[in-house]
Each structure stands twice: as C-alpha cells, then as structure tokens.
C-alpha cells in the first residue's frame, strides 16, 4: 500500500523544475557518512486485505469481554461506550485536524474543548480545567510540579493508596528536581493515614487518590484541612472519574487541584492508552496550570468564538520557563469524554455511577455472606479488596482457563498483601456474571 498521488510524469516534470535528474539527487547535500549503506530491512509490504487478516489474528489472541468475565480494574475500567461516541469521533474533521493554532478554521475543536473544560470543571467542582494531559499518572506528576511552583516548597506527602504506577511516574518526573516524597501509610480501614502530615514542614502538597487504589473513598475534607494547616495544597487524584457522578466532588471538599484519569468517560481501554489526563484547579492558580487552555473571545464583528489562550505559560512562547513541556495532549479523548458527559447528562451520569456502586455492593455483600474476607471496611465505589483463602493462586489460574479473571493480585504492588485481590465491578456486569463469579470462587 502507499498513498502517493504522483505519476511518473509528475515526478519527471517536478524534478526538472527543481533542476535535478533523479530522486536520489535531492539528497546530494547529505554527507556519505550519514547515509544508509543498505536498504531498510523490513517485512514485505502487506495489501489491505492481508493486513486485515493479520490484525484480526493478533486481535483474536487478546482476552476481552464478553468472552472473558473479567474483574480487572485498577486504573482502567470496562464501561459501556454508546456507539454515538466512536461514530462522531471518527469524523475526519475532528480526528485528522492538528492542534487548533488557526482559530478561524478550527472552531469545531476549540468550542468542543471549551465545553470539555467546562464539564470537567463541573464534574470536579473546581473553577478551571485544562484542555487535557496524557493520562492520569502524568496529570498527577504535573499537578505536583505545579504545587511546588506555587508554594515554592519541596516536600510532598504522597498517599501509599495512590495507584502504584502513578507513584512511579511521579518519582520519574521529579527525579532531577530538588524534592522529598513522604509516603503516607494506610489505616486498617483502607484509607490514608493523614496523621503524619501535621509534623511535616516545608510541605508543597498532600496528594491522595479517591477512590483510592483499594477502591476506598477517602475523607477528602479532612485531608484538605490537614494540608491547609501546613499551608500546603491539597491535590486529589483519581483513576475513576465516573465516581464523581455520585460522590462529593474534590472541589466541594476543599481540594486545590484535582487530577486524574478520564478513560471511564467514553474511552476504550485500548491496553492502557491512549487515555485522558484531566486537571482542574481553583481559579487563583490558573496561570500556573500546565498544558493548553481554550478561552472565549469575539471576532472582528463581535461574534462569539474560541481561541487557545494564556499561551505565555507555554513552551512555544516561554521555552525553558514554561509551566510544562507538554504540547500534543489527548485532545480527541477529551472530545470523547465531553460527548460522554453530554450524552449521560445530569441524571444519566448519576444513574450510571449509582449502578457501579450498587453492583459492587451486591458482589461485596454476597461474597462476604459466603465467607470471603473483606480486609478493609471503608466505603468503596466500584472496586474493593478481598482476601481469598491460602492456595487460591491455583484456583485463579484454573479460572483463567475458564475465561474468568478473578481480579488483580495485589502482592506485586503491596508485598504485605499476599492472597489479596482487587476486584472491579462496572455497570457492564450482569447479575448473572456476578453470581457466576461468586459460585466459581467458592466452588
């Protein structure tokens, strides 16, 4: 396959215009030492039909619902996506446009991102949101860098209940920066132990995740109070944006910055990416926010329109003094999230979130009735930790063969939690699938 429209005649005439004989002559200025000695060694080109067959084959080797009854969550969630969303997103006008640098020919993307910023700010209960970041983990890293810039302090209290890979990304981003991360342990009920915060000085931020990695809903207002007592910012992360369709949002509980993953809002899991980094903050911090922002303005005739704005924060103007290096973000996924939030609307988002809560409660209650140990007692949204009996590992492997994935073994992330599994239940699970699971694990 190729996508060149050039005929041999075109090429000959164009070469003549340029004043060279052969295509290779266009590269005459390149020193021999920099040139390839051999042709590229790549597999023979596929036709479109062959590619379909090849990709179908690769795709069939992947485990996916509904063939598999999977209880994996932990940062990526199998929510129902109405076909309206991929169908609208597939419009080339959205998908094949570049960053809207020229507003007169990009009003579609610009208005859509302005609407995304607005709906995100409403979901998280804060005044402003940016146009998107890469994913939840980089959003948390950017939020913490932002908090360090705002407070000019170097310590960060990081809940151990934040997604382990998010904590790793934070460590990577901050490695060259003068900083100190203090890990906050968890309480017996599965929530973050906030007590150590009161004795930490020079604190830029207290960062937690809610619902946290164990699914437990954190007491955000207490955390925000503890952070503010130390003159630190309260940074609330999340991996499950849908939770705020039901739960009190971070802004209303005192969070200064809320940041996390928006994959649950109409975006396929796609083996972890592309995803959607969401970030919102109080209005007073808007000039420290990383990433792009779309703002409302008017044209020469006074008509309402939208432009990229506050670019003086950004790398193409500020270069090394920019608030972030981010340029390309997750715009198309932000659009998907806006479509999802708009389609669900005020009542739909509540009902979908509530179904996640109720189905999770159903499974949790019945597992407990059957004698499964629930080690952490704090309320949860759509994930929770169970402790299966010793030797469950063999059963886990056997269930995999029966196409049932009994959650995520936690020992890899929390060595003290051998035999503990993190289970996720979304609205896509039928009661029968939940009952099958209960029956299988107690067989």
């Amino acid at each position, binding site marked *: *396959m190729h996508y*060149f*429209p050039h005929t041999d005649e075109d090429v000959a005439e164009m070469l003549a215009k340029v004043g060279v004989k052969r295509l290779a002559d266009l590269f005459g200025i*390149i*020193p021999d030492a*920099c*040139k*390839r000695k051999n042709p*590229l060694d*790549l597999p023979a080109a*596929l036709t*479109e039909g062959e*590619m379909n067959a090849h990709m179908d084959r*690769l*795709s069939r080797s*992947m485990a*996916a619902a509904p063939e598999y009854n999977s209880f*994996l969550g*932990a940062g990526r969630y199998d929510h129902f996506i109405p076909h*309206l969303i*991929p169908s609208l997103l597939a419009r*080339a*006008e959205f998908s094949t*446009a*570049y960053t809207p640098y020229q507003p007169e020919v990009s009003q*579609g993307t610009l208005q*859509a991102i302005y609407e995304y910023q607005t709906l995100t700010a409403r*979901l998280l209960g804060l005044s402003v949101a940016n146009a*998107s970041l890469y994913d939840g*983990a980089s959003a948390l890293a950017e939020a913490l860098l932002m908090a360090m810039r705002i407070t000019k302090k170097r310590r960060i209290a990081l809940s151990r209940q934040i997604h382990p890979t998010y904590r790793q*990304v934070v460590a990577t981003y901050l490695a*060259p920066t003068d900083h100190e991360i203090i890990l906050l342990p968890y309480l017996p009920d599965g929530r973050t132990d906030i007590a150590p915060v009161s004795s930490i000085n020079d604190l830029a931020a207290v960062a937690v995740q809610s619902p946290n990695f164990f699914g437990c809903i954190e007491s955000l207002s207490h955390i925000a109070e503890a952070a503010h007592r130390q003159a630190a910012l309260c940074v609330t992360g999340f991996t499950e944006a849908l939770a*705020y369709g039901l739960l*009190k949002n971070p802004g209303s509980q005192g969070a200064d910055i809320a940041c996390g993953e928006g994959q649950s809002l109409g975006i396929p899991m*796609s083996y*972890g*990416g*592309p995803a959607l980094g969401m970030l919102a903050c109080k209005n007073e911090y808007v000039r420290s926010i990383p990433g792009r922002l779309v703002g409302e*303005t008017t044209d*020469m*005739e006074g008509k309402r*329109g939208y432009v990229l704005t506050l670019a003086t924060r950004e*790398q193409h103007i500020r*270069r*090394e003094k920019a608030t972030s*290096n*981010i*340029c*390309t973000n997750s*715009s*198309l996924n932000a659009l998907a999230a*806006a479509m999802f939030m*708009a*389609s*669900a*609307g*005020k009542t*739909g988002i509540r009902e979908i979130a*509530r179904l996640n809560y*109720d189905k999770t409660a159903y499974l949790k209650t019945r597992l407990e009735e059957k004698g499964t140990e629930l080690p952490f007692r704090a309320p949860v949204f759509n994930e929770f930790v169970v402790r299966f009996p010793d030797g469950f590992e063999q059963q886990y492997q056997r269930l995999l063969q029966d196409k049932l994935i009994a959650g995520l073994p936690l020992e890899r992330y929390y060595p003290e939690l051998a035999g503990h599994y993190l289970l996720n239940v979304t609205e896509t699970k039928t009661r029968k699938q939940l009952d099958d699971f209960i029956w299988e694990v107690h067989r």
Partner: protein
Amino acid sequence: MKNELNRDGLAFNEPLLWERSRKGRVGLSLPRRDVETAEIGDDLVGDATNFPELSEVDVARHYTRLSQWNFCIDTNMYPLGSCTMKYNPKTHERQAALHGFAAAHPLLPTRLSQGLLRMMAELETFLAEITGMEAVTLQPAAGAHGELCGMLMFHAYHRKNGNPRSKIIVPDTAHGTNPASAALCNYRPIKVSSGENGILAPEEIARVMDEDTAGIMITNPNTLGLFEENIREISDIVHQKGGLVYGDGANLNAVMGIVDPAASGLDVLHLNLHKTFATPHGGGGPGSGPVCVKKHLAPYLPVPRIIRKGDAYDIGENFPDSIGRLHSFYGNVGVMIRAYCYIAGMGADNLKKASQLAVLNANYLKESLKDTFELPYDRPCMHECVFSDRKQHAHKITTLDMVKRLMDFGFHPPTIYFPLIVGGAMMVEPTETESRENLDRFIATLKAIAAEAEGNPEILRKAPHGCRLRRLDETAAARKPCLTG
C-alpha cells in the same frame, strides 16, 4: 438557546452544549438495573453534577455541526511545517478499533495479551531498523514526552557516571519543547546560533561544549528544513567532552531509508508516530513519541519493557538503572497500532519513496515560490522550506495577513513565525501525499495573494472573509480569561 431562525444555510450557528439543555432529557441508553439499590452514607453523596440534559439527536447534531467548522487533512492540503500533516489511511482506524485491541485491559496476564505484545515488539524492531538504533521504548505519549524521556536518560546516565552536569546545548532553531523538556531536568539551556547558511557550525558547538554540559539537543533536518551537514563532527565534539547527542526526530519524514541517524552520531532519538507514521493528530492529540537509543543507553530506558522469550512476549520491570515509568501503563497503544500498520503496509521501498516524494514536493514548492517570497536560505531543502514576508513589507502586509487570506482559498495556513530566527516565517511542509496539481493550485494561490498584497492589501488585512468567523481577538481572550461556561 434563543429561538432564532437559522439564516446561514448549512453553516449552522451551533450553541454551547448547555444552551441546548432541556430538563428531563438523557442522550444514552442507560444500562439495565438488575440489582437493588444499596445503602450509601449521606456524607458520601454529592449534589447532582450540573451537566446539560440532551437527547442523542441533540448530541449527534451538535458535534456534527461543530465538526463542519474544522479544517482537516481530508478537507485539503494542511502544510503546517514540522507537523507532517500527511494523509491518515482509513484502514488504520479499522485495525485500532478491533474489539480485541480496544477492549484489552492493560493488566491482563501476558499470555492473554500476546497479540498486542507482539505488535509492540515488532514495532520496536521496525523503528530500530528505520533509525539504525539498538533499543526502543514506545512508552512516551507524545514528542515532548519523548524529549522528557531522553533528557531524564541523559540525567540518569551522567549521574551514574558521577558527574551530573548542569547545562545543555539547544540551537536557536529548536522546537520550544526542547528547552522546556531540558528545564524539567534542571538543565540550563545554552543557546547556540546557526550559521549564515542555516546550519550549525562545529566551531560554534566546540566553543560552548564543556564537561559541565550534558550534551546537545539537535533537530535534523532542522526547523529551516535543512540537513545539518556537520552533524557527525558536532557529535564527535560533544562525545569528546563526555556529552550525549539527542536527536529530535520530528522531521524524520524527510530521510527514511536514506539517512542513518545512528551513523550520524545520535545517542538518543525520539520519533513522532503522529507525524512520520501517519497516525491522526486528533485536533491536538493523542500522539506517540517512541525513543530510540544506542546500546550504552538501553539500561536507562523507561520500564516496563517488552521482552521476547522465544516465540512469546513478556513485560519486564527489573531494570535497575531505568529512569522509571512515564505512563500509567505502556503508552498510547492505539496510536502504535496505526503506525505499525502504516509500516507493515508501506514496506521498505515505499517508506523510502515517501521521504523522496516529501522532499521533492518541498523543493518543488520552494523553486516555484522563491521569486514571490523571500527565501532566506536558498539551498536544497528537505521536507519543508521557510519563506519570510520581507518582500511584502513594502505594502505593510505581514505573514499573518497572507496566511489568513489562504483560508479564503481553501488551504490551511503553514506554520508561521517559527523558526524564530526568520522574521515573519512561513514554514511550509507539503508532505508526500499532496498531488502535483494540488501543489500547483497552492502555488497559484500564494502568487495571487502576493499580487493582492500589492494591489489590494486591505483585503488581506481583514482576511479571512470566507470562514464562519472573522479574525479573533486573542489579546482580549488572554487579558480576561473566560475558560469555562
């Protein structure tokens, strides 16, 4: 929403989402409730989220109308310099949307995810072959993320070697992301100027390179569309002082199968799959910015890494010198699938031909327009060329005026006012997927605009005239930001 008649034909005047809202509407099929309501503490439940209430038809029409206000690759030529806006093949969308890929959970046991692991391992191999480098990470989610990855690797490498170093050389033609990425690693960017011929002189690098300098970030071909002919010598100078050479591969589309980036002395090179490898840019993302390295830097690559075990693939975390993790999982897999299909479909010969034709198209434009616009660096160019508006200054017409006028003729403007070293720059990258007839139309259009600059400059100053909106007030937007509705 005011009840006004639409007088704009098919150019609908579409309100904001919430201006369409009517209490009681829902725009999706709510999942079945087959369990009872569970108890929940009042202290947990928030107020109902203030989302608009819309029907599915409302949502479908809203976004269809918005989409019609966008220019895209499928509309016409989109010659944004350094952005490589080539055609995005439709078949890639089918492949990335296959259920097994789209519905795959990233924490699946590896034996249940061999298809994507194989795709990623093979894509790494393809990119290593194309760049001549020895190891690849696909994890960075965009070009700037790749730059950050590269700078973190520089930082980790120098720290491991006992001399952390504090500076980095960044030429004046660099993308703005380069200094911003370096600054995240606390490197102080040292700016060097390109010479009168638009490329870097080795003496200039030798003058600033020292043992407190971590290395150089170099874009090749550079942002003037010129090949850095002294790259080998520059690399040697940097290496002699213990530094490393970072290549910004945003412009790889000029040299696939022709240049050997490894042989030109690079230690690290990032690629933009959403440029060179034809994945759609989505109105600003998602992209993907793989990083290719030579063997001596492989231990510092981010984790997790894909490991081949015979015919099977696994995910490895245990690399003690790694800079760590940059993404929640493995990067933008959906974007990787499209780039993988692009390479698999094109094959070696067509990838090389893509670069040849991209360079041919750019040189054809350059030759056809250099009498109309000032060409500050009149040398054979690579995949893009940079003009200035100096000839039009006599008529008090700027680059901005001319490119806004281009919209009236159905073309997207080129990149403007970049690189900064060319006043009033117009950086034009046609890409190989534009036909000769379309290039001729673009050339004729720019010539007509240059003629208007002489004869009817006012029409340019007020352009565009044919878009839904006239020129927008960006100053007012920044002075009093209104970021949410």
